[in-house]
């Protein structure tokens, strides 16, 4: 039998329906691959018993012809999603062995539709990071090996400090690595400033951050409430469309979720883009943009033009303020959202001589340095005397960024094409050590989308000179995820799929 982990989600679904394969064997194949790939550190918790039980149930349903849209599909779940009875930590020491009594809305919808949980995926602590290096469980290794490293060097690094091996991006680094290494058919992820799209671009996978309000945030550990959105990472455009349909939907428990029918996103895959107007924003041609990224972008333009789309130059004049404004808004909200981790009710508690001492010791021990940095930034920008100069101004910029997009869409543009990241994946331990802003610059093309609350999709479009995946980003109108799937499929058809070298980590 062929390796079942090589199937796409759509192929596996069809094979399960036609009873060519069983959910149990599909799940077992993935559990075996996970065991082989522990060195990648993509999973922080494997749940094989639960997976097999769920798969057995799916097989019963498949036999009875009662299969849900995701029946028997094994998925990985980012550790930011609360999973009932299964440890949920946001990859932070402060949550300790926290085990929720509740299931996030998004994952409960996946289980409703028949999906199987393989385990919890690594991420940057509280989703703060662009490389998955800030996780309390340690970094995730990308299944893409550094160019021209011989096997023995790879083996040594895997067993050692992992320095120089590539990052899978972040914060959804466990999700992107697991999907790219075929350790699940798809994964949930979250995106606050690029945490779905940048890891997808780094690993040659497809990730979509839907419109703010499309998916419920209930039960997902909050980073920055006005920016956080759930979304999938999968290996193909179609697979991500299938997953999003199950993840999306209105939830009365999240008043920022929007009551709007969820379309059949898969039906949009393969739809003609003839006559669509695609905007190319000149402000994304930033200083120092590498020539290979620029070339990739032009290639994308050509593919879309070939498919009958009309290409127009557009301007998003406030783009350059997006990153600094983001790094005010997101930490401000985070500083408040993370105040609940105080050692009183759950998670870590380090005793102190009084309550203030307990707070300080607990939070000092429980939060990693990047999280502490952002809490301090957020606390500072909300402080009396600084609030107007920072937070209020950042919100004004946010309004201007939203208006930039509105103007472009008002002029008839259907979607915008940009690079996903300014560079291919970098090595573990290589970036941000002396200057955190260096790391923050990874999000330069993605944060605008969160600031405007728009849908954004990243997908692989080619390889760098060193043979690493490079991604393009499509930005859509509010709640027009369908257009993004249609356009993305055109690029996917033209660019092909990109797979890392065979399982060198095993």
């Amino acid at each position: 039998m062929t390796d079942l982990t090589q199937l796409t989600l759509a192929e596996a679904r069809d094979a399960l329906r036609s009873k060519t394969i069983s959910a149990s064997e599909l799940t077992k194949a993935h559990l075996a691959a996970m065991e082989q790939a522990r060195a990648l550190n993509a999973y922080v918790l494997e749940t094989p018993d639960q997976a097999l039980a769920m798969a057995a149930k799916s097989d019963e349903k498949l036999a009875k012809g009662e299969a849900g849209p995701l029946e028997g599909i094994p998925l990985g779940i980012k550790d930011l999603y609360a999973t009932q009875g299964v440890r949920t930590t946001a990859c932070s020491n402060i949550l300790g062995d926290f085990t929720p009594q509740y299931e996030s809305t998004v994952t409960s919808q996946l289980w409703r539709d028949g999906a199987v949980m393989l385990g919890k995926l690594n991420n940057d602590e509280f989703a703060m990071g662009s490389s998955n290096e800030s996780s309390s469980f340690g970094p995730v290794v990308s299944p893409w090996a550094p160019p021209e490293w011989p096997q023995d060097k790879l083996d040594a690094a895997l067993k050692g400090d992992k320095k120089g091996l590539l990052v899978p991006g972040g914060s959804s680094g466990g999700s992107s690595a697991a999907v790219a290494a075929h350790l699940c058919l798809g994964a949930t992820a979250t995106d606050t400033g690029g945490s779905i799209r940048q890891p997808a671009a780094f690993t040659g996978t497809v990730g979509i951050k839907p419109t703010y309000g499309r998916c419920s945030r209930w039960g997902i550990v909050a980073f920055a409430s006005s920016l956080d959105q759930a979304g999938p990472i999968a290996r193909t455009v179609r697979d991500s469309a299938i997953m999003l349909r199950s993840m999306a939907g209105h939830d009365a428990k999240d008043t920022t979720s929007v009551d709007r029918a969820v379309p059949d996103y898969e039906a949009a895959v393969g739809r003609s883009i003839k006559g669509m107007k695609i905007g190319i924003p000149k402000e994304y041609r930033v200083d120092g943009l590498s020539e290979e990224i620029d070339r990739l972008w032009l290639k994308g333009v050509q593919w879309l033009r070939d498919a009958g789309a009309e290409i127009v130059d557009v301007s998003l004049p406030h783009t350059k303020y997006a990153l600094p404004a983001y790094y005010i808004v997101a930490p401000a909200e985070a500083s408040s959202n993370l105040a609940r981790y105080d050692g009183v009710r759950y998670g870590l508690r380090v005793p102190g001589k009084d309550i203030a001492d307990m707070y300080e010791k607990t939070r000092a021990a429980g939060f990693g340095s990047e999280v502490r940095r952002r809490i301090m930034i957020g606390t500072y920008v909300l402080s009396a005397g600084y609030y107007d100069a920072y937070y209020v101004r950042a919100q004004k910029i946010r309004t201007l960024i939203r208006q930039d997009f509105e103007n472009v869409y008002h002029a008839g543009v259907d979607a915008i094409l940009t690079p996903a990241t300014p560079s291919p994946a970098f090595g573990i331990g290589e970036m941000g050590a002396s200057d955190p802003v260096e790391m923050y610059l990874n999000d330069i093309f993605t944060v605008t989308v969160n600031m405007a609350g728009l849908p954004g999709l990243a997908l692989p479009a080619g390889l760098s000179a060193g043979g690493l995946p490079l991604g393009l980003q499509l930005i859509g109108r509010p709640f027009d995820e369908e257009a993004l799937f249609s356009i993305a499929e055109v690029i996917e058809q033209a660019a092909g799929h990109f797979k890392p070298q065979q399982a060198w980590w095993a």
Partner: protein
Amino acid sequence: MMNATVDPKKLIKGATGDWEVVIGMEIHAQVTSKSKLFSGASTDFGGDQNSHVSLVDAAMPGMLPVINEECVSQAVRTGLGLEAEIHLRSVFDRKNYFYPDLPQGYQISQYKYPIVGEGKVIVDLVDGSQITVGIERLHLEQDAGKSLHDQHPTMSYVDLNRSGVALMEIVSKPDLRSAEEARAYVTKLRTIMRYLGTCDGNMDEGSLRADVNVSVRRPGEPLGTRCEIKNVNSIRFIGQAVDVEARRQIAIIEDGGKIDQETRLFDPAKGETRSMRSKEEAHDYRYFPDPDLLPLEFDQAFVDELKSHLPELPDAKKARFMAGYGLPAYDAGVLVAERAQADYFEAVAKGRDGKIAANWVINELFGRLNKEGKDVLTSPVSADQLGAIVDLIANGTISGKMAKDLFEIVFTEGGDPLRIVEERGMKQVTDTGAIEAAVDAVLAANPDKAEQAKTKPGMLGWFVGQVMKETGGKANPQSVSDLLKGKIGLE
């Protein structure tokens, strides 16, 4: 202009002259609602510790607040009762600070854009005068939990039952000038909310707490530095706290000192206020709009609908009682202080003389209830029973004196007043023959006095008394008097 409002009676005498006290209040009123402001957990008082706590109230990771519409309606109703501006758009903010009984690490409150803006309350004072107290704003916010420090030798416990319960913070303008005014204001506010059914006003259970801002100044001078006395939980204590704090401030200033702006606590046992924290130690709450909640928006139709179902409020009811029943302002004020009292009165007054009904309700019933520690809701005498007693007086069946005895019987034993009168022979004797016989007997027994009475009409009263005694109090005094006059020859 400030001078014009100074009432010399309200000034406090210091060692160096008169002082005026200026008071503004923040009242925290618990919204009457089944569930909490942002969660479905019960608001019942007195459950086991941590038995009314949802995942949201305990601030579990990933939990989100959802506004309780009933609490919004209650805030709007209260705003309407305060004749205040209702804001169709308001915003919930986070007030950030760490405390063990504040699970989220922030309180969801309304800072810049409250749901209710400026309004007013008319307050009646004991001397019959009225003052108008301006309302600055009313906003919705979450209550915190409770820290319990006496359950364990080295640790504190936290009870989250109250965590997330809806409060209305009602901020007055600094329009109050005495402890009496402060007490009367809170009393009136409480009455209005109880009429509206928006807050039960139960201060023992913490449903109503006051932060009292006190400053002093020489009459006519600008406002002095204020101190905020936190969490005063009875109307009596509010008055005491104002007096104690005003005198403390006056003494400091008269000694050449300066008032520091600070937060203080009132200790009723010691009769003093104590410093909690100074302005420098004040928290920086880092308010910002709660990104988990959209701005709270509703339309005028929503407000109008609530307005159309508002009950008659105490001021309107008082005016109606005065105009409709001819009651003096004081009596009307006493009756409308509680909606149940006013309802009771109206049931008694229906189809009867309003003044007589008010007299019986206020003097006899309230006096008696008070003695027993009861109120109209637990009164052993129903409005129907009291009405029947009033009827028996009006139609001459019993005398006023008998009526008081009858009331006492109904109060202690219950029963139908008319039957009691019949069974116990309490009926007034209106049979002229019987009365005449008694009159004749008395006159016959006292011929000298009868003779004197012809020239001294003042003696008539003595004869009436004798006849009443003879009839066991059942004779109609008017008939007795008329008969006596005729027989003595006074007409």
